[in-house]
Each structure stands twice: as C-alpha cells, then as structure tokens.
C-alpha cells in the first residue's frame, strides 16, 4: 500500500529525514518509536503533505500512485489520514461543521451525494459516543479549549468518520489517562481492517499491549535504524535507545 524509498526531507536547509525506507502492506500495523526530535512527526507530516518540509530526495508510492505529486487535500481524499501530535484550534468553526465539510469533500471525491446536516449530526453523535466524547463537543469550536486528551479523542473521532485507507497516528496515546487510553485503543482497533494500514508513532510500549503491531521500527536521527516484531518494543522499554548506538539529538546538542 505504502512504499517509501530513500526519503529525504529538510526544513530551513536542515535535513531532518535522511533516507527513510519503509514498506507497509494493507492490513498491517506498524509502530514507529524513537528518541525525541528524531523525525517521527516530520515523517508523518511529510507523508500527509505538509508544506513546511521540503522533500529533497526519494519516492513515496501509495497504492501505486506517486504520493509526493499529490496536493495535501488530494492525498487526504485518496485515504491518507494524519492524527496530529498537537491538534490546532480553529476558533468559531464548529467541530460539526468542520467534520461535515471534511466528510462531504471526501464523499464528493468518491462521487457520493453529500450528507445533509441532520443525517450527519446523527452519525457524528454515534461516533463521538464511541470515543467517549460528549456530543456537546460537536458544537464547540474545532479543538477550541479542548483538554489534551479531548483533542486526541477528537482525532480518533475524525479517523472513524473519514474511514481512511492509511491512518498515521502521531502519538495519539500521549497525554491520555488510563480510561482514555482504552477508549483510543478501542477506536484504533475498530479501524483495523484488511484493506487498511496503520502507522503509529508512540513512545510507550504499553499502547502496544492494546494495539498489537505487526512491526516495530526505531527511527533515530532521520533514519530507521532497527526494525523488528512486537518484541522489539519490550527490548526498547528495557534497554532504552543507547544500545542501538544512536545519537540522541538533544543530548549531543547540549
């Protein structure tokens, strides 16, 4: 489904991704772990089409198509979804209106009729209950004044509404209390499907107890330095990143 070859990306002349190779097949779940500042969010955002970063080398194909040729919104309509590590607020725009506009953009792209306000409201309420988010949040501005955990649940709500083919979850588990972690993992497991791939960025192997990945990769200083199965996460939990001989960016800088 997703094939990343020798991907390099930089911002302001500084190279952040230094040759990423990764293949993800439909139905698989891949976890990416790695030290702070190693480029996990950068990789997620580059795949989703952020214009902050410049791709300087490499290729990415998504279901056979050159992903890097597509505009951000086109990638989204093709089924690439990013749950943000730091979701932004859009004051005054109701969550409901935002979500309906998004869902209808996707439907329009697939040649399906738009969902009217009443239909959508009903559907969105059901899904918000599923992620344990009070439907009252649908009326509030997008992420406006949401707590950290509420923002994360709102991201999962969006994933469930948009039903992407590739869901990239950037630290959707961080900042969650224990109950919320269950809710979010259940949401992610609900997304799990034969024709869908999930790429999750996380720092905690405990999430991987709830959502069992097929592969675990370690990203360090812009490169994937180790890949393995579920057991790699335990090893990392025990030993940290030091044994992999990776430089911790922050540590070397200070």
């Amino acid at each position, binding site marked *: 489904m997703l094939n990343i070859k020798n991907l390099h990306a930089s911002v*302001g002349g500084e190279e952040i991704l230094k040759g990423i190779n990764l293949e993800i097949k439909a139905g698989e779940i891949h976890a990416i772990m790695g030290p702070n500042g190693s480029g996990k969010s950068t990789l997620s955002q580059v795949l989703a089409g952020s214009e902050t970063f410049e791709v300087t080398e490499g290729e990415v194909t998504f279901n056979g198509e050159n992903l890097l040729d597509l505009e*951000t*919104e086109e990638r989204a309509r093709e089924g690439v979804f990013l749950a943000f590590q730091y*979701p*932004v607020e859009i004051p005054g*725009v109701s969550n409901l209106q935002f979500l309906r506009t998004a869902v209808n953009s*996707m439907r329009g792209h697939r040649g399906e009729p738009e969902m009217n306000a009443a239909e959508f409201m009903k559907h969105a309420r059901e899904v918000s209950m599923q992620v344990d988010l009070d439907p009252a949040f649908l009326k509030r501005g997008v992420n406006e004044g949401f707590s950290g955990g509420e923002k994360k649940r709102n991201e999962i709500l969006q994933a469930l509404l948009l039903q992407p083919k590739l869901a990239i979850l950037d630290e959707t588990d961080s900042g969650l209390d224990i109950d919320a972690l269950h809710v979010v993992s259940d949401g992610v497991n609900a997304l799990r499907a034969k024709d869908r791939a999930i790429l999750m960025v996380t720092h905690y192997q405990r999430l991987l107890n709830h959502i069992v990945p097929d592969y675990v990769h370690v990203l360090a200083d812009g490169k994937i330095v180790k890949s393995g199965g579920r057991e790699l996460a335990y090893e990392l939990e025990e030993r940290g990143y030091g044994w992999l001989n990776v430089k911790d960016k922050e540590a070397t800088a200070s």
Partner: protein
Amino acid sequence: MATTDKEVNELVKQEYEHGFVTDIESDTFEPGLNEDVIARLSGIKKEPEWMLEWRLKAYRRWLEMDEPNWAQVGYPKIDYNSISYYSAPKRKEDMLQSLDEVDPELLKTYEKLGIPLHEREQMAGVAVDAVFDSVSIATTFKEPLAKAGVIFCSMSEAIQDHPELVKKYLGSVVPSGDNFFAGLNSAVFSDGTFVYIPKGVRCPMELSTYFRINAANTGQFERTLIIAEDSSYVSYLEGCTAPMRDENQLHAAVVELVALDDAQIKYSTVQNWYPGDENGKGGIFNFVTKRGAAIGKNSKISWTQVETGSAVTWKYPSVILRGDNSVGEFYSVALTNNYQQADTGTKMIHLGRNTSSTIISKGISASNGSNAYRGLVKFGPGAEGARNFTQCDSLLIGDRCGAHTFPYIESKNKSGIIEHEATTSKVSDEQMFLCRQRGINPEQAVSMIVNGFCKEVFKELPMEFAVEAGKLLEVSLEGSVG
C-alpha cells in the same frame, strides 16, 4: 512549532459578480459643482424653497471645509468638479405610480442582483426601496406598511409628502457642517430612504434599501433618515453594488437615525461596492457618515455592518447615547483584499445616565489589504454609571496585508467602566494544513476559518442576510490563497 510563512498568492481570479453595466438612457448632469447645479438638482426634484436654501447653506459651508486626511487610507486627490452630481434613468412621468411604469431594463438589473421588485417575486417579509444612481426607482410593500402607519418611501417623496418630519429631523443628527463629506452630501444629496415608525408600532417587516451605482463619473450621494417614535421597533438593511470601472467613483452618503423613548432601531449594512481590480485599479470610494441619536430613555440603536467592497472605506457608524439607560451597539466585519483599504469603526458618545455600549469589530485583511479599526468611546460628565465593552479582533491572511487599531477613550465621569480587548491572529499554516489534511479545499478552508472568526457579528444580522453575508465573504476572499 515554527512555521515558515508561505507566500500567499493568487490561485483563482474571481470576477466581481455585480460588475455589469445596465444600458439605459439617462439624464445626467455635466460634471461640475456650483450653486446653479444645486438649484437645478433641487428644481428637477420640485423641491420646496426651504430645501434649496438648506442645500445652499450646506454648500457654502462645505466650500470652507478641508477634506479629512487623518485616516489610515491613501487615495488620489478627488477633483470635485469632474464628477457629475445627478444621473437618473429617463422616464415619462415625473413621479412613479406603480411598478408597471418602471423600465423593464431596470427591473432586470435588480433581478440580476437578486432583488426582484415585481410583486409576485418579492422577497417575503422584506420591503425594498431600490435606488439607482441618483433616484429611487421603486419601493415595494408600501401598502401593507402604510396600514401599520409606517412611512417607507424615497427621500424625494418624503420632502414632498412629509415636509414637517423632514424639516424637524434632517440634519438633526448629522449637521451639514459636521464633516467634509457630510457637508458635500447635504448640498447635493439626490435621493435615499425615509422611514418613520409611529409610536408603539413594531414594523411588520424588514425594511431595506438597495443602492446601485450605474452611470460612469457619477457620484452617489444618498441620504437616509429613520425615525422611531416612542416604543417602536424597526430593522433596516442596506445593500450596495456597482459596475466594474477603471475610474474610481465617489459614494458619500449620510445616514441619520433617531430613536425616541423605548424605541429600537437595528440597522444592518451589507456593503459590496466594486472594490477595484486585483491591481488596485478602479473601485468605489466609500466615504460615509452614519450616526444614530438614542435620544429617548431606554432607547437602543444597533449598527451591524459587513463591509467587503469598495476600494477605500471611511466609515464610523456612531451612537449618541443621550437618553438615560440607552444602549448603543456596533458589530462590524470589514474585509480588505487585494489593494482595498478600510478605515472604519465607531463612536459611542455616552451622555445619559446608565448608558451602555458594545463594540465588536472583526477586521480581515488578505493579500495587500489594509484594515484599520478606529473607535472612540466617550463618557460625558453626566454619564453616571456608563459602561462600554470593546472587542477588536484582526485576522491576517498572508503576510503582505496590514491591520491597525486606534482605540480612543475619553472619560469625564469617574463612575464609568470601560473594558477593551484586542487580538490579532493569522490564518495559520497549521490550520490550513489541518483542513486540507481532512480533504477540504484551500479556498473552502479559508472561508470556513474566516466565517468562524466573524460568527459573533453574523449572528446579529437578520436571518435572511446572514447566509448571504457568509457567501459574500467567500466570494470576496477568492484569490487570496495559494
């Protein structure tokens, strides 16, 4: 997270929707302004002697006045002798009896603008006065309004039919010597709308005036006067458009509102004059004086404006809070795109006891637009217990535009409370990325973000127009993202 300010350039070049010209025969004065021109104008309108005297007095005063230059706007010097001061579509009769006599070409024009004037297609619940260049060509729903005792007619008719009211109130809120543009308007105003709501009457429908500038090199100088007697209520809306022309055109209107005891006037504007092209060529100079006098106790005047058009806007709808417990409100959305400039705001002059005012101003600048909020809150010595709340928010789209706020406060009474909040924000790259990542087009994303920003103001608009205003913003913003 650091972001790079990405260059905002033009993606779509949207034509101004109302830019067409109506091909119609008109009686148009030669350009130029002097006492003879004013006498001729007054003569054509068969005005009484006192009206001509009033105009001439204003004109002589205007000659002594200087054009204001303190606003945050720049425009080439206007040659007041190169403007024509009167242009009206030709017609057989002097006074219109019914819509059947209106030139079909004119009816078509208004239809195209979305304002059908024919009885069968009229907008339900909204009465319209249609002003075309210098004259009012039709007023709808006159009869049902008359039954309620409401007078809704053109200013020219009011001068003929209700001289006592016009004499009493014209210039009572905005005297002809008030400022340069008001002085000019007093001398040469050609038409406009007159509204009178008698004591205890709640006007049974929305009243509105639709202003259209058509003729080239013509100024539009309309005059609106609304009087709400004790315990009455009226909601009034004005809309405006003009053809696309390379030359700038002058629009200098005066609006006066008078609210007596317990009366309420809600005045909304959706201003969409031609803004000029994307290089700043052409467009309307919109220099307008709007003021309400909340004379009566417990009276209330609200201004709501959505300003998306005009090359240059200079406009400060104000309220003089004279009556005890009177209330003044100002809700404004001003958008400047391309090379548009707006210097707008309000004045709340508190004179009576326990008077209160609210100011909510939303300025949006895109491309090279410049947007200034200028507001004065003044508490007079007698304004015991006065209160004001001001909130000024600016939203920037891209990094070539500008926003400025000039809040002035003068308090001569220690018991008053003034609260002021101001924010400046940008449509951020992160917000755009979020919207686009969810499959939303950049244009739709900007319009959604801007609409969210304006929500507090839009909810003050009459229902029928809130949707319209949202769409208008969308059109006006097109071409602002890339």
